[in-house]
């Protein structure tokens, strides 16, 4: 039912590779500020890389919880810290491979893309995903 650290990282990467890529392909042409695919896919990549680091932090915090769980609400609300960090990195122009100055990227383009992907993944992994894989929830959220 609850994932392990390995399972959380696997699920996160798998979801970004599916829902993340899907929404990036669909939304990029209509995002404000007219970003190109290079920018949006680099941002998706940054979300994935930083996400692994975030998982390690969450895992450490979980050790202080008796249940060793991460309540549904936490999984939802952590979009704030994760998104805010990337906005900060963009503002400071610390995101590599963008091809433009990070501070020139329209923040709303990132916010919209990020939240749509986040919500789809959060809803999907909290329910419908189980329809396709009966093993996933008992095997600690591992895909492989």
């Amino acid at each position, binding site marked *: *039912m609850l994932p392990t650290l390995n399972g959380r990282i696997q699920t996160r990467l798998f979801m970004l590779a599916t829902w993340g890529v899907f929404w990036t392909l669909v939304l990029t042409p209509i995002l404000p500020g007219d970003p190109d695919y290079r920018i949006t896919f680099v941002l998706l990549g940054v979300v994935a890389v930083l996400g692994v680091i975030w998982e390690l932090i969450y895992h450490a915090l979980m050790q202080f919880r008796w249940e060793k769980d991460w*309540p549904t609400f936490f999984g939802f609300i952590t979009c704030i810290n994760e998104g805010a960090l990337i906005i900060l990195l963009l503002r400071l122009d610390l995101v590599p491979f963008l091809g433009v100055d990070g501070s020139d990227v329209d923040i709303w383009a990132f916010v919209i893309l990020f939240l749509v992907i986040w919500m789809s993944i959060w809803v999907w992994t909290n329910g419908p995903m189980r329809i396709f894989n009966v093993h996933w929830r008992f095997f*600690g959220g591992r895909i492989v």
Partner: protein
Amino acid sequence: MDAVLSCRGTGLSSVTSTNRLPSEGEAAMDPNAPSVFPTTDMGNYAPAMPAAGDLNDQLLNSDFWTDEMVAAAGIPIVDVPFVTIGGGIGSFVTVDYLRIAGVPTDQIRVLSAIDFPWQTYEYLTRVSQIPRKERIRSDSASRPDNIWGFPSYALSEALKNKNPKTLWQVFVEPMWADFYTPKAGMVFESMERERRRIRYDEMLVKGLVRIVRRRYGGGYFSILTPPDGVTGTKRVAFRSQFVHVAVGYPGLKYLPELQAYRTEQNDYRHIVNAYESHEHVYERLMQYPSTVLVRGGGIVASRVLQRLMDDRLINGANTTIVHLFRTFINGPNDGNTGNNPTKTSPFMRRKGADGWAYQGFNYPKSVWGGQLKRQMRKLEGEDRARLYKTMGGTNTPYRRYWQKQMAQGRREGWYQLAVGTVEQMTPNGERIVSHVRTPQGMIPIEADFVIDCTGLEADVAEHRLLKDLLEHGGAGRNPVGRLDVDRTFELRGTRSGNGVMYASGSITLGGYFPGVDTFLGLQVAAQEIADDLAKRGFGKRIGPRRSLSQWLKWANGTTI
């Protein structure tokens, strides 16, 4: 413990035959034939055998049986590849998995003394004060009727009532709301639907199984004792390649001083166990101002207290409750250290107060898939037993409603706490005096009724089938004394040629997976068993395509 109670198949059943009629083309059974048809219908047996059709000394004393030995005893043999013994929720979820994995009904038989899978569970939950309208202690996604756990109970309840309240609850639990748990009635109704959908009754054969023995040449004989008159012989042997044992709790164990008092005074009326029907206590309390001594600090004690307090606060009973704890928890704790916060690790510490240790479910949530499941899967012997102990110990969920009631009771003086161990119990007219050893010395507590909520479980060897498996079947015990199963839930030591025996439920507690005696635990076990069987060519492994198509059938209510 709510979700714990599973599938003990003794003592409850109204005996009715559910055997199907022989269909066209089915021949009469000849017990000597290498293969016979999977039915126990009397009309199908070979006529008048010279032997009695009962177990004999040769059979009872042999660990391995040949087909000839069984036939010579006159016991009809029924061939079916897979039998599950118990017929409670453990058997049900395993059979559900196998049916969804494509196993037809004629390859499965459920040998059971009960009429429907939740019969024992419903009895035990009802008497321990969880009638259908009350909520059990089980997670939203632990659905014995749905192997996917989607939609969860919370989602189903929200859709049914057209009210998102339960969805909000799972969203903010456990910080700003109690853990969502389903109503007992909803659990039973959904299982009823699934029972019909997978044609469970076609697989059900009524009777008791007390012996399973290995067969020369592979597989097993499970000896069924059907209800009187249903079959032509006293016993029927089910010859199968695979056996699954899910008989639930071996039995209740009573505290020695309670048992002594009941036997000596012949008083089964004033001292009751919470798992016995004890409605008469509550009826009496409604009529006369009385004192009740409640013993135990687990979920059942919480339930019984709620009933007593509801009766007082809502229905006007004038009851004084004395609650006796053996270990009084009043701070951070774990199952090892009891109430000694200095000894608990900051990484393994649960909340506790007012006597109770608080925990949402029977185990920390991550035993059903997360970190603790992974950790336990790697541990052996002493190390495993130690982790079981750390996360064990009596506990109950923190529920806001209960907290409110208890706080009011303490404030108004009708809910009193005591800490100690009972040394002796003596009668005083109609009342019972418990002599309690406390840190301050011996204190007598006089009460009109004693409700024992300690929930002790009997040893596995108290169950005749399990005793036989330990003595003749090759089964052994795990580090906490129950049946030793492998990670696939195979009962270690019982392999018989190409035959495999599995077990799940509370009898396997102490294995590589901790949450066995819960709804979700039974499903975890069922998945491991179904996967292992698929590797052996029995049923298909449930991959994404089958999973999706079968879920759609579940959602549509399509019979499979």
